[in-house]
């Protein structure tokens, strides 16, 4: 296979880069070891689009996050991704915390986030009634926002694919080839790809990819973040992203709504060595409970429907880097893209593309670039007339499979047939929320297994939850 650019990693950043590159007359291939787009960290995070108010001023991370935030109004509209500018609050409960507020405001000022406002305790309680009533005052960050992180990545990828980008999933990069100080190709476990440019957007594994070209002057360790998801029906909710005042040691644990109306509580921050350890722990979950009660004393963690864990790619030494090298033409190395990576993805798409162009990559825009992408029509969100129309067009839209989230067989079949197809239980869940409600697949999973087997034309035992080996059933009964 021959192409111009290979992007390694189909997480938020890789897919955003691919979408931006797809505006140019170039051939682009995205390679990822996982069976679906969505990466690792990109699918298990706090789903927040940050403003960068608390970044380290003057860093690349600050510039990218600050630049990215305003881009999401357009991206969410063009790519049909649920997004909501709900705002964040940073309440202070103790004198020590209260005295920190001017410094946090100054940091926001240094990051050029000028719309951060001081609110009194009374004002904060008025907009967030479930807040700990001992609140003395705090900051309000109006443009902190929430997004559907799964759909953002799928949307970037689908739009890139509409514009000619080729996605090679379940494909692991095993080497990068160079000759005379130039990139010549990428070797994968599914064959070799000749190319002139390589973008390393491999997140947690970017150090291993960098080692193939000898540019691993850093290493990445996973920093585990555990979260609770609460039922939409939980009685104690928040309207904003409620953030704790950070301490020297940690940014702390937050509580915020998701774009779908659940409550998200967490995360922990635990440094690990094992990049595959995605397990929640009793200690981690207990620590979330203890900390978040300081913010929202009434939080009902018994209303949890699931807990999950994400691994932030923590760079050592620290810092978000986009590196190019004088002695290696055609190679762009991204590293240290951590919790702000989802937000930064929009700006990184542009930044990486411009970096490649500055390096000498030919840049001619396509005249037929398709700028918008439509998601799978939602039965649940449609009004009665639209529902009738959806069922008329495809009778399977009349059959509800996931009762908690009201997801129909029509939507599931469409997800399986999309250009970036959902081929596993989890891929369907991330795109549609089938199995993400309070029964967590107890009701719909047996049916989704049947639908996947039928649509993919495979026996049920070949239907997977996600990766190879994650089979759900072992075969027919006796």
């Amino acid at each position, binding site marked *: 296979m021959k192409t111009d650019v290979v992007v390694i990693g189909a997480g938020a950043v890789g897919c955003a880069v691919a979408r931006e590159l797809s505006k140019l007359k170039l051939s682009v291939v995205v390679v990822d070891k996982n069976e679906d787009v969505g990466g690792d960290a990109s699918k298990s995070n706090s789903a927040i689009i940050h403003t960068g108010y608390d970044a380290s001023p003057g860093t690349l991370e600050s510039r990218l996050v600050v630049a990215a935030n305003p881009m999401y109004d357009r991206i969410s509209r063009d790519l049909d991704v649920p997004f909501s500018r709900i705002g964040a609050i940073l309440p202070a409960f103790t004198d020590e915390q209260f005295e920190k507020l001017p410094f946090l405001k100054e940091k926001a000022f240094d990051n050029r986030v000028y719309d951060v406002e001081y609110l009194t305790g009374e004002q904060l309680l008025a907009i967030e009634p479930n807040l700990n009533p001992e609140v003395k005052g705090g900051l309000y960050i109006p443009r902190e926002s929430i997004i559907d992180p799964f759909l953002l990545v799928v949307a970037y990828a689908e739009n890139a694919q509409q514009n000619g980008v080729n996605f090679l999933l379940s494909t692991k990069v095993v080497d990068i080839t160079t000759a005379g100080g130039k990139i010549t190709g990428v070797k994968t476990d599914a064959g070799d790809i000749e190319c002139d440019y390589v973008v390393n957007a491999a997140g947690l594994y970017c150090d291993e990819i960098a080692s193939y070209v000898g540019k691993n002057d850093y290493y990445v360790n996973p920093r585990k973040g555990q979260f609770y*998801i609460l039922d939409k*029906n939980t009685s104690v909710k928040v309207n904003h992203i409620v953030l704790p005042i950070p301490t020297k040691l940690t940014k702390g644990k937050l509580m915020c709504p998701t774009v779908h109306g659940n409550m998200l509580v967490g995360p922990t921050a635990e440094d690990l060595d094992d990049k*595959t350890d*995605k*397990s*929640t*722990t*009793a200690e*981690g*979950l207990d620590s979330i409970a203890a900390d978040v009660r300081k913010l929202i004393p009434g939080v009902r963690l018994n209303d*949890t*429907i*699931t*807990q*999950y864990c994400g691994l932030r790619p923590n760079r050592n030494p620290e810092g978000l880097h986009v590196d190019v090298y004088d002695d290696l033409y055609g190679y762009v190395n991204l590293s240290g893209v951590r919790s702000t990576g989802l937000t930064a993805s929009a700006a990184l798409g542009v930044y990486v593309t411009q970096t490649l162009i500055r390096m000498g990559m030919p840049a001619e825009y396509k005249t037929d670039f398709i700028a918008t992408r439509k998601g799978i029509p939602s*039965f649940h969100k449609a009004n*009665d007339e639209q*529902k*009738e129309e959806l*069922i*008329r067009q495809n*009778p*399977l839209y*009349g*059959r*509800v499979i996931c*009762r*908690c989230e*009201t997801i*129909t067989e029509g939507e599931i079949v469409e997800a399986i047939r999309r250009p970036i197809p959902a081929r596993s*239980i989890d891929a369907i869940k991330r795109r549609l929320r089938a199995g993400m409600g*309070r*029964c*967590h*697949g*107890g*009701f719909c*999973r*047996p049916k989704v*297994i*049947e639908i996947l087997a039928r649509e993919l034309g495979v026996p*049920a*035992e070949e239907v*997977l*939850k*996600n*990766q*190879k*080996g*994650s*089979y*759900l*059933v*072992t*075969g*027919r*009964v*006796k």
Partner: protein
Amino acid sequence: MKVLSYDVAVIGGGPAGLAAAQTAKENGAQRVIIVERDTALGGILQQCIHPGFGLTYFKEELTGPEYAARFEEKALAAGVDKLLDAMVLEVGKSALLCSTTEGLVRVEYKSAVLAMGCRERTRGNIRIPGTRPAGIFTAGAAQRLINRQNLMVGKQVVILGSGDIGMIMARRLTLEGAQVKAVVEIMPYLAGLTRNRVQCLDDFGIPLLLSHTVTRIVGKERVEGVYVAAVDENKRPISETEEFFPCDTLLLSVGLLPENELSKGAGVKMCPVTNGPVVNQLSRLPFRRFSPPVTSSTSTTLPTTFRWRAP
């Protein structure tokens, strides 16, 4: 939109819904319909292929589907209508909105019976730490896969919870060739019937671990095992008793929660203790539209919601 008009609309064609529809009909309701999301009536009985049903009611031993068929025959013979493969989306003050593959259907009613049943508590509800691999099933979901879809869920199984469905599944899995390593129960006593313990566990040599719980799930793609520990009197695991059980499947039989989205949407008041609707001593909702005004003398026999246990 197709519009149907009935005196009584029953949501859910499980045992409660079937009994309610038949009773309504026998007590003078002219037009009665059952709206059922599955393709057959009977609800969860359809997947309960073990015997033991009907001993009280019919004085003979029947399987779940046979038992359901008896009730279905009675209800249909009494003139009850059914609307299958239909999901009720909303319960309004005088009509239900249903979704079917032929379009939306509006079912107008004078009285509605809410008999949607229960859903099973999940791994997330009870916060078992660990990884999230394939191979974790609620007992009912596994029962559906095995008995209705004829798909086997695993080879080496640990079951958490000694409820009846859990024990019945222990036997069912054993009969299908799986090895059930243990049934683990956090309480110091059995949750289900002693009869099921004898017939489903003891007869097959399946160990029952009382005052134990699953403390951690291990496995990347598929379950590779679970840690089980004894618990103290406050149900906290005693870490030094933790033991690893290699297995590829974990079944959960850890309780049921009422299915009440529709009730809530209709404005029915919920009880925070039971998570079911607030009812009066006659099991009637304090909300006229949903109480069954079929005939005044017998209306109390008509359940509004009905909690059902496997025998």
